């Protein structure tokens, strides 16, 4: 390893200087995984949200709209049991592999790589990772994904981007879900857009209702175009 060590004698204790970010190793692993996936032509999307914002429901709606256009696989890390994996299989026919995070609050690049080793990647264009439901930790650990997406649901409030700045900074796509319940909450979509763009001026914002499927066509078309453009680039 390439750290600089200085050994300074101080009474009887020696100090070894490290001066290294705790995330440095993971960032390196993530970059390596990203290049490997690029070589293999597999687009990895990291989907994050707070628990219950609608990751699984949105996935099901999206998969049914894209599965005839591109080949997709799913990795589940949201909860340790396989309920989400079973739900997705039943609703879309797409098998997903279940990652066991052992109660960890996030996935890192190494865990993601190990998960991908279990996905049969033959001809797969897109792998979607349903990350652990949490808005803090997954934002700090780069998984090696090409893009990060997150779901903010209406009941959580339009000021979430102010409270969880890092999550909104790292996300390229923000899906605003549960727009069907907008009349019952004082959710201000324009304010929400403004706050998201304060964190990331480039972020794409797509409002949907995963329950009825409203808006999901936009999301599905965006995703298919993304994958195709990336493969050609």
């Amino acid at each position: 390893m390439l750290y600089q060590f200085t050994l300074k004698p101080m009474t009887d204790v020696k100090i070894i200087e490290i001066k290294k970010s705790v995330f440095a190793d993971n960032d390196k692993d993530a970059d390596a995984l990203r290049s490997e996936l690029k070589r293999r032509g597999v687009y990895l999307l990291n989907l994050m949200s707070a628990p219950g914002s609608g990751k699984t429901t949105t996935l099901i709606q999206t998969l049914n709209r894209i599965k005839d256009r591109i080949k997709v696989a799913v990795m589940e890390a949201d909860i340790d049991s396989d309920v989400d994996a079973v739900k997705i299989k039943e609703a879309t026919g797409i098998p997903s592999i279940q990652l066991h995070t052992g109660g960890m609050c996030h996935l890192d690049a190494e865990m993601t790589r190990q998960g991908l080793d279990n996905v049969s990647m033959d001809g797969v264009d897109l792998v979607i990772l349903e990350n652990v439901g949490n808005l803090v930790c997954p934002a700090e650990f780069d998984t090696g994904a090409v893009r990060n997406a997150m779901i903010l649901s209406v009941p959580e409030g339009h000021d979430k981007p102010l409270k969880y700045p890092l999550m909104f900074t790292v996300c390229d796509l923000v899906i605003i879900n549960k727009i069907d319940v907008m009349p019952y909450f004082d959710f201000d979509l324009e304010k929400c857009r403004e706050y998201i763009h304060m964190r990331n001026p480039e972020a794409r914002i797509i409002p949907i209702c995963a329950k009825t499927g409203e808006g999901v066509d936009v999301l599905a078309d965006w995703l298919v175009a993304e994958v195709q453009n990336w493969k050609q680039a």
Partner: protein
Amino acid sequence: MHELGIVFYIIRDVKETALQNNVNHVSAVVMNIGEVSTVIPEYLTDCWRWAADKEEMLKGCELRINTIPAVTRCDTCGSEYDTVRYGKKCPHCGSDDTWLLCGNEVEIKEIEVT
């Protein structure tokens, strides 16, 4: 619990450094933790105690935390100000064109060995 994951990373790096330097016991680890890094120092030290004591090399090893103040710089008027107090908006000119200069660190500064 996000601090526990971070503790595992620290342990991995510290053990690696200790082995390279032929050290068999580490008595303290000094961390630089930024004020807006989202790491909660008390949680970190609690997780540390639990996890470090399971490692022969780190039994009783103390985790010391230097807090790094968060400072934001404004590109409109050039001033630097306290992030925790004023947030994203510059208190001098009201601009949003600001960025975090420091305060996001989660860094192992050094270790002490005896």
